[in-house]
C-alpha cells in the first residue's frame, strides 16, 4: 500500500517534472540541497513506518523544515564564503544511509522468517509423507 503510493507519486511527479519550466541556473544549487534534505526525510518516513513509530507532524515538518533550513544555511554559507552545504550533505546523506540500513534489515529479517517458516512447513509435510 505504502509502496504503491510512493511509486505512483514518483511516476506522476516525473511526468509533471519533465514538462515543468526550468529554474534559473543561479538557484539550481539551492534546489539540489533541498532535494537531498527532502530525500532524507522520505527515507526517514519509510523507516519510521516500518518501525511503527511514524508521526505525520514530525514527517511533514521535517520534510519542509529541513529543506528550507538547508537552503538558508547554503545561502548563509555563500555570504560568509564557507561551503556550509557540504556539512548539510554529509549529515543528510549519513542519515539516509542509516535509514536505508533500517529498511534493509527490516526486509531481510522479514524474508528470513518467512523462509524459515517455509522450511518448517516443508519439513512437516515431508514428515507426514
Amino acid at each position, binding site marked *: *500500500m*505504502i509502496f*504503491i*503510493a*510512493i511509486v*505512483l*507519486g*514518483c*511516476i*506522476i*511527479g*516525473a511526468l*509533471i*517534472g*519533465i514538462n*515543468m519550466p*526550468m*529554474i*534559473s*541556473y*543561479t538557484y*539550481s544549487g539551492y*534546489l*539540489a540541497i*533541498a*532535494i537531498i534534505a*527532502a*530525500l532524507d*526525510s*522520505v527515507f526517514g*518516513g*519509510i523507516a519510521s*513506518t516500518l518501525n511503527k513509530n*511514524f*508521526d*505525520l507532524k514530525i*514527517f*511533514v515538518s521535517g*520534510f519542509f523544515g529541513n529543506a528550507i533550513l538547508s537552503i538558508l544555511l547554503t545561502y548563509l554559507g555563500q555570504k560568509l564564503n564557507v561551503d556550509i552545504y557540504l556539512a548539510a550533505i554529509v549529515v543528510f546523506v549519513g542519515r539516509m544511509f542509516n535509514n536505508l540500513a533500517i529498511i534493509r534489515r527490516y526486509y531481510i529479517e522479514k524474508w528470513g522468517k518467512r523462509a524459515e517458516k517455509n522450511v518448517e512447513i516443508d519439513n512437516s509435510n515431508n514428515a507426514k509423507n
Partner: protein
Amino acid sequence: MNKKQISITLGIMCFLLTIAICVQIRTTNLANSTVSQTLSDNELRDQVLKMKERYDNTYREIENAQKELEKIRLTATQNDKTAEAKEQELKENNMILGNTDVTGDGVEIVLEDAKASNTSLNLSAQLIHYSDIQLVVNELKNAGAEAIEVNGQRLVATSAITCEGNIIKINNERIGSPFTIRAIGSQELLYGGLSRIGSILDVIRDGGNTANITKVDDITIPKYSGVISYKYLKENK
C-alpha cells in the same frame, strides 16, 4: 495513525521530490550543454552561466520596455492625422537605422575558409579576413544594398568590422567562419555587381576559399541588438 493516511502523505512527498529532481536534472543538463563540461572549470562555468543569465534577463527587459514604448506611442497617436504621419516617419527611420527587423528580396553570400587539405603556398590567402568582409560589404553598399547582415549582426551606422586575432568582431560580437552575408536590395544589381569576373568574390576564391552568392527571396534581417548612444552630437541650429 492509519496506513492510508501515511501512504497518501508519503506519496505526495515523493511526488514533490520527483518534480524537484526532474527540474534539477534538466537544468544541469542544459548548463552542461551550454558550457564545457570539465570539472576544473566549474567555478568559471558557474560565473559564465550566471552572467549569461543576467544578460538574457536584461535583454528581455529592454525588449519589454520597447514594446511598452511602442504601445504608448500607438495610443498617443490615435485619432490624430499629423501624429500618424509622424509615426509612419518614425517607423521608416527605425527601419533604415536598423532598429526593426526588415524583410525583402536580396542576395546571400557565403564565405568559408579553405579546407585544411588545400596545399597552397600562401597560407594567409586561405583564410577569410576581416578586410574581405569589409570589401564585400562595401561592394554590396555600392550596388545599393539597403540592409546588410553578417552572421546575424545587422550593420548599422556605428558598426565596425574588426580583426581580433583569430576571430572577427562585428558590433563587438565575435563571429567566425563560415560567414553568411545577407543583403536586401535590387537582386539584379547586387548579384551582378558581385558575381562579375574580377569581383571581390573572385579574389577571395583565388586563395582556395569558398565564396558563393545566391539570390534569395524574402530575406529577414534582424534588428541591431545593441544600443546606439551618442555623447558629442548636437543639433545644428
